[in-house]
């Protein structure tokens, strides 16, 4: 069944393999099984200048059959403390995954955008109010130590399966 979504995902897959050297904060972006291009996983690396440093954050990516007319569904599998990520479900509040989606985005550019969201949180549309409130009060020390604590607690295991 060579439908439009499979042809496009195959193209993205080949491009991702070719560009792998150009993504410092994306350790991995690949289909979970070679023969199913509609279910992917990714691992984001916490950047050195943030409370996420040293953390590895696993994402679950589901491609709808209507992709790229509809966006992929992406959530964190690794527990993460971030104002725009739901602490329990891993749901991500990012406009390009919802109302601002357009087919010009790719899995790769979306993962880069999520990685960028980690260091540039948006406390005005929170899914995690505790983290957002610290930011809104300007309590950067409190915010960073909370982020660091959860990163050490959940994102630094050798084996996260």
């Amino acid at each position, binding site marked *: 069944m060579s439908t439009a979504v499979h042809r496009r995902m195959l193209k993205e897959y080949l491009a991702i393999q070719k560009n792998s050297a150009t993504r410092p904060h994306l350790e991995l972006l690949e289909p979970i099984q070679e023969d199913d291009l509609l*279910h992917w996983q990714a691992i984001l690396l916490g950047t050195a200048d943030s409370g996420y440093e040293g953390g590895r954050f696993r994402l679950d990516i589901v491609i709808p059959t209507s992709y790229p007319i509809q966006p992929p569904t992406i959530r964190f599998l690794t527990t993460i403390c971030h104002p725009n990520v739901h602490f329990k479900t891993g749901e991500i509040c990012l406009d390009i995954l919802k109302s601002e989606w*357009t087919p010009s985005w790719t899995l790769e550019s979306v993962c880069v955008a999520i990685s960028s969201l980690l260091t540039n949180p948006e406390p005005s549309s929170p899914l995690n*109010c505790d983290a957002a409130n610290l930011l809104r009060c300007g309590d950067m020390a409190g915010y960073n130590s909370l982020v660091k604590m959860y990163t050490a607690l959940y994102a630094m295991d050798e084996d996260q399966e």
Partner: protein
Amino acid sequence: MASYFDDHSLEDPYKARRPNNNNANSNSRFNPDLSHFMPREDTDETAQTPYQMGATSMPGEGDFRRLAQLFGTFRQREEALGDEEHQEFLDNLITQLMDEAGASGKHGPPPASKSFIRDLPFVPLKEVKRDDACIICNENFQENESKAGITKLPCKHFFDRDCIVPWLELHNNCPACRAEVPSDDPVWIKKKRDAELAKYAAEAEVDEDWMYS
């Protein structure tokens, strides 16, 4: 140096990190994390496959409505006790929940108008450049002649008709540059008209200033 995103005339994700701003313009003092106490339509987690989990983790319109009604009941009880500050808190909460109920059913811009889709131009293959690709399917136009043909939007971006029509049936903008095209959606039409009136009024004011200065 031009980035990957420039080369493909795509939006650079490094510059586009705006989280979803559904409630950004509701200036309420209270912004509760609803998800912790959100009643779920489906609580049987064992029955969920990984494919469904993403979809069901989003609170739906009904969830917000039910929660708003619940707080409405609380509010009536508070009224009897005369605690004004608490009442105001509940009022804000209820308003916000109803806003969410309205917003959660909408995903992005409204559909393009039927007549716009019907009248999309047919573009001859010789009009597109040799290595131009349709950004929806990522396929080169020249190598992909079997389809229903090529079309272009008023912003001059080219697409396969088969690719752009399903998008326009959902959203009235260009996938490449977000330039708007007409919509039949009454809310969109009203917003457009209001914006034009506001612009007209602003221009009239400038004229007046000039006349009396």
